[in-house]
């Protein structure tokens, strides 16, 4: 066993990918500025709380980054199991928040197990793919498929359509990277298409409404289509340079719904225009490119699956949220990563970046396929 010995903590810190760290800080700072505007100039309403959460999240991110990757490999199934138990706990004792059972009260913070599950699933799949000879034979697909579908089923019951979709897409992408044949993807896609009508019957009335409304928001512009219509108006009316900071009429007069959470990108576009919007999108793109550099240069399978999975999760957040507020996707309740007001999503994302940083630190490390052992 070749051991790259653990150097001192400071050495490790200095080798962190500071590009990624500074992009994370920059994007979060943009978020705080927007939250101040959303609160009509009030820092304390949302921005200050968000900064505190970010501080906590950053500590967690660094902690995750500095712990040895093999340790995470070792604990990945346990972590998955723990998340699954929490997810079931929501079913049993969760309370109703925003019409959906998504939160579990841990007395100190309200935890969203579905967020933890995203991290856990990526790690569990990465560990499984790491432990197998790739490409996987057909019968070995069953176990990782179960890893995906058990939480997906639980999430659909909650119902949390957005997270379920994210889990399926992230899982599917990891299968794709693991070398699963294109043919199998084709078959799966077709069978999903065939089962859509059945899935439709599982959806709640408001979810059906949102999906229908997505196809024709003008049909009910004061009801369920209101969000999309007003969001498009706010975004479109920003023009090239925007209406100016804190000058967004749609936001300040409350035409824009959920302006501090899911629709914050619209607030940005209304006040800062196309310039502001494309600036933030460019920052996201840079961050993703930086993550991809790590994936490409990492030797170890577990490491690069983890990094790829976390990057994908991040990308899905960005894409689904932005596409949703621009009326390209139905409203599913996915926040804009690092910018939207809210604790758990940010925590998940910072944990994700912790893992990406971790993999970046351990680029040259190569963990043997069958070693489950502790370092």
């Amino acid at each position, binding site marked *: 066993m070749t051991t790259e010995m653990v150097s001192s903590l400071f050495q490790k810190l200095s080798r962190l990918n500071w590009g990624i760290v500074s992009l994370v800080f920059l994007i979060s700072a943009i978020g705080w500025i927007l939250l101040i505007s959303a609160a009509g100039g009030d820092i304390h309403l949302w921005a200050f709380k968000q900064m505190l959460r970010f501080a906590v999240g950053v500590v967690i991110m660094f902690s995750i980054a500095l712990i040895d990757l093999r340790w995470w490999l070792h604990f990945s199934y346990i972590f998955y199991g723990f998340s699954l138990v929490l997810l079931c706990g929501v079913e049993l004792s969760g309370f109703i928040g925003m019409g959906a059972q998504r939160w579990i009260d841990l007395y100190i913070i309200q935890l969203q197990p579905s967020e933890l599950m995203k991290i856990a699933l990526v790690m569990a799949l990465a560990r499984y793919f790491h432990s197998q000879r*790739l*490409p996987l034979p057909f019968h070995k697909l069953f176990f990782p498929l179960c890893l995906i579908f058990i939480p997906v089923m639980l999430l659909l019951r909650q119902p949390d359509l957005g997270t379920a979709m994210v889990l399926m897409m992230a899982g599917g*992408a990891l299968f*794709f*990277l693991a*070398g699963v044949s294109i043919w199998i993807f084709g078959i799966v896609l077709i069978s999903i298409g065939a089962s859509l009508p059945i899935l439709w019957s599982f959806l709640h009335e408001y979810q059906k409404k949102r999906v229908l409304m997505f196809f024709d928001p003008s049909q009910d512009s004061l009801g369920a289509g209101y969000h999309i219509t*007003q969001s*498009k*108006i*706010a*975004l*479109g*009316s*920003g*023009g*090239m340079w925007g209406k100016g900071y804190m000058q967004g*009429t*749609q936001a300040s*007069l*409350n*035409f824009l719904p959920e302006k501090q959470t899911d629709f914050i990108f619209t607030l940005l*576009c209304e006040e800062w*225009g*196309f310039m502001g*919007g*494309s600036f933030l*999108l460019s920052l*996201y*793109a840079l961050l*993703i*490119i930086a993550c*991809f550099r790590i*994936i*490409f240069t990492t030797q170890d*399978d577990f490491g*690069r699956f983890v990094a*790829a999975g976390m990057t*994908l999760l991040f*990308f899905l957040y*960005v*894409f689904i949220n*932005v*596409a949703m507020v*621009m009326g*390209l996707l139905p409203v599913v309740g996915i926040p804009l990563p690092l910018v939207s007001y809210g604790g758990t999503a940010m925590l998940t994302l910072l944990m994700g970046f912790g893992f990406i940083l971790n993999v970046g630190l351990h680029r040259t490390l190569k963990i043997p396929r069958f070693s489950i052992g502790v370092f």
Partner: protein
Amino acid sequence: MSEKENTQFLGRTLFLGILQFVLLLLLLGRMYYLQIFEGNYYHLLAEGNRIATRPLIPLRGQIYDRHKSPLAQNEASFRAVLLTDKKDKIEEVLDTLSGLIALSFEEREEVLKLAQKKRGFDSIIVKDNLSWPEISAIELHVADLPGISIEVGSVRKYPEILNGAHLLGYIASPSEKEQEEDSMLTIPGLKVGKVGLEKYYDVRLRGLPGHSAFEVNAKRKIVRDLHQVASIPGEDVHLTLDARLQAYAQETLSSYESASAVVIDIQNGDILTLVSTPSFDPNLFPRGISHTDWLKLRDNPYVPLTNKAISGLYPPGSTLKPFVTLAALHSGVIDENSTIHCPGYMFVGTHKFHCYRKTGHGSVNFSRAVAESCDVFFYEIGKKVDIDLLSTVYQDFGLGRAGFEGLPHSKKGLVPTKNWKKEEKSANWTVSDTVQTSIGQGYMLATPLELVVAMARLAGGGKRLVPRLEDQGTVSFQDMGYEQKYIKAILETMNATVNKPSGTAFRWRIPIEGMEMAGKTGTSQVRRITLQQRKAGQTKTAHLPWKYREHGLFLGYAPAHKPRYAIVVVIEHAGGASLAVQAARDILLKAQFLEKETVL
């Protein structure tokens, strides 16, 4: 992972990376489309969200008579208004309110219906035209009536009830059709002229609405005032009408079932009086007329809603004889000295036409023929005069022509010609037709306004006078080219008609020197007197049922030697002309007295 798998992994990672990049570009493209390509459209929508406007209704212009006394003015009215902020409490508030003021079930339902539609700052008129006790009752209980406030508006008021109702018309809320044609009328609360001068001058009287703009939030609550564009009040209209004479004429004619009269100033065409009876109270309309009141007006057999002075079509009867005479003199068919023997009847073909005087007038010249209304004289002229020439003279004097373009219900009379009969009746013109036309019967129809214009043109010396409702400064009228000596001679016969003992209207002359009246009587048959009736001695129709009696007409002017006022009076189914002459005498006398008063 073997080398092959490693390459595959890197390849697929690259693929995912490129896919993500493409998807991000797609978002950028969408953003560009929404913000730059459709930016203006969404900007407008955002402004529409943000800015709400409330129309400011312009004050309607007032209508005055020639002496500046108001005929239609605006009066302050107080109304209870409900702000729809607190929707859930509306029923409660209405309950409390109906304990204080009279609130019908329909009014209540209407408010509830509107409250469903409107949001936030919009206000609903709960009850208009509050009385003082109602206002104080509401003010006293204002604490129990959240959302209710009292607003000052204006309501149209026609001060001289019944006088000039027809000519002025009235205003009311616009119909859906009117709103489609003119989008300005969709402004809630804006009233529009429905008929009469209120409609004729509507665009001028209406003014331009303004608006006040507010910034509102998503709940339609006002955040702040933005700006105000003041409304521009409508223009005032000053009529040529004399309210005092109008009132007098109205009162004079109100003793008859159905009548109309017009007085015109021969010097300038000013319409001094234009009356139609029975009339109605125009004040019923601006506040919204009740259904029973409306039915009463609509189904009245004497059609009070119609302005007969401009839309009533009557056979002018003998009143046309001066014009026939002029046509005959003008065309040389007769001269001043021509005489005709009147035996009391005349045959045209096999048909026997009777004279006004059964026993006949003996030998008559045109002067006696007019004054004593000898029909046979005119039958003889009628046989000789070409109908198209006669029609040209009629039309020169405004028959079948005069009227106010655009004044609602204004109609034109009918002056028949050979072509007209060929086209409309598919028949050739006959001598019998000419004979009938020459005594103002047959196809011939005229409105009272046309008749008075003809009178004024004749009395004015054959000038093409144009009637007018507004004083637009001094005017001079074009001469129509008729021989002055003929006109003078004809006017003299009209003088004789009234002021010579043998004249048909001598009993009702004005015996005051300098104020004498001249004119011509006329009766027009509504139904031919049958041979049997004539044999039974029935040549008069006074004892027939009202609607079969003859119309009584009088066309005249005063003073007889210095024509100033031309008048027409038509009394429907009067059975004879005497009532019309009496009414004309009274009105002309009043007009001259008023003139003196004004001069003094």
